[in-house]
């Protein structure tokens, strides 16, 4: 990665965004939009006396997901994924020519994840790539490499660039989803779409699906992430951080798999809808030309 050291001096005049202002606003918006959802607040207090509240959703409920493909004009495919306040933008370049290839019978998959400097409210992010970003890039590559038919593209490289616009937990899940959607948009041949889901388990036996930053960073909690290809019923990645009982692990993995299937159906429907819309636009253009 090219580093511009002139930029690596962060601007110190910015203030972190206070989301509590938005929270109150959102509540009123949700109240208008979805009258059926009862405002329920689940509270848990961990050993460090950090309160965890879930507003408007239960422990087994995913955050609201928004997806869109074809958002960037450059590159061969792109996608934008929003899971609650976590916002991720992904662009695919390629399959394109490479100068240095050791394994030239198959394509090489490169993945690069970058946090924007304004993405997080809790930690300072430099322009320079840090080890966390490198680790996440590697995990994303591992999760989706099994789904792509790399042998179809010899002597080429497929580059995935992910930009985290806002980090509110579960960035890895959002990134994997975004990468898969962008690959589908680019028309890269793959075996199946990879969907993923993560669960955070707290000490007081609460399993929180799709955790936010505050839920992820509880010191005594542990998280499990599962990425799978639902149509082929194959798991491509399991990551566990923290300590968990064996029975709890099984329970969490089952929950993750359920979540994966839910996200997969959303992804699938989204792809179909966007293709239908494109078709409609084409027809309208043809009519206008006539």
């Amino acid at each position, binding site marked *: 990665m090219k580093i511009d050291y002139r930029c690596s001096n962060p601007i110190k005049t910015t203030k972190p965004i206070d989301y509590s202002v938005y929270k109150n606003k959102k509540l009123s918006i949700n109240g208008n939009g979805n009258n059926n959802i009862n405002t329920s607040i689940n509270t848990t207090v961990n050993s460090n006396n950090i309160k965890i509240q879930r507003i408007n959703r239960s422990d087994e409920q995913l955050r609201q997901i928004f997806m869109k493909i074809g958002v960037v004009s450059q590159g061969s495919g792109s996608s934008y994924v929003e899971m609650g306040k976590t916002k991720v933008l992904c662009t695919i370049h390629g399959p394109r020519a490479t100068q240095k290839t050791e394994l030239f019978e198959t394509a090489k998959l490169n993945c690069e994840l970058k946090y924007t400097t304004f993405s997080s409210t809790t930690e300072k992010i430099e322009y320079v790539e840090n080890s966390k970003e490198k680790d996440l890039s590697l995990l994303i590559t591992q999760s989706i490499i099994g789904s792509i038919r790399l042998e179809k593209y010899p002597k*080429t490289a497929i580059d995935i660039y992910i930009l985290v616009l806002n980090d509110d937990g579960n960035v890895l899940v959002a990134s994997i989803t975004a990468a898969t959607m962008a690959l589908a948009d680019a028309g890269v041949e793959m075996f*199946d779409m990879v969907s993923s889901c993560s669960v955070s388990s707290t000490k007081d036996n609460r399993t929180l699906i799709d955790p936010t930053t505050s839920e992820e960073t509880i010191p005594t909690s542990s998280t499990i992430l599962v990425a799978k290809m639902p149509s082929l019923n194959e798991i491509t990645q399991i990551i566990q951080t923290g300590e968990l009982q064996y029975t709890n692990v099984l329970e969490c993995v089952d929950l993750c798999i359920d979540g994966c299937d839910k996200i997969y159906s959303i992804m699938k429907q989204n792809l179909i809808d966007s293709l239908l819309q494109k078709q409609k636009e084409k027809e309208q253009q043809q009519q206008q030309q006539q």
Partner: protein
Amino acid sequence: MSQTTSTTNDIITPGQRLCKESDYISSEGTYIHKGYIYSSVLGFKHIIKRNINENTVNNNNNENENQVENNKDYIVVLKEREPGILPEIGSIVTVQVLRINPKLASVAILCVGTKALKETFNGVIRIQDVRATEIDKVEIYKSFRPGDIVLAQIISLGDSRSYYLSTAKNELGVVFAQSVAGSTMIPISWNTMQCPKTKTKEFRKVAKMDQDDDTTTDSKNE
């Protein structure tokens, strides 16, 4: 060869199970896994019917097993958008010569068929692949010069850096070249080109162009 009639027009997502392996022949945009045909791209499902005349001819010659094979239709999922064309073995490409040495000419692949590439691929025309006859008498600098636009065919994926190309056909070779004086040269024979300005002759492996059509695909079919 085969009739292209699409019967359905459904939108298919990657990884969607389409049918049993025995129902159709898996074709473009699909793959077989554990006895089923799955889609591998986002696009529209088409079923391409085989020509009946072709079937009857084949059925008479082949065994019963093949008869069943021949009665099946192709199933394809057509992409709504191509991720960009790639050079394949056997395809006719337009290349520009970058540098030459006594053993080979390094080229940059610009177009595949009639479609331009977004980024160039590296290729190599080795001395034994320049022409079909009198291979031992070929001299690279009498065949290509840096800057020439050449029609060539891909013969293999080559080594890790470049594709291997061949111009060992009449219709393959230099199609555009500039003389030392800088004007576009006119081919006067299969191995010489002349500069209209200075009337000097230069050696090239000239492509035999179809006079009516100047597209690459037409010269291939010739």
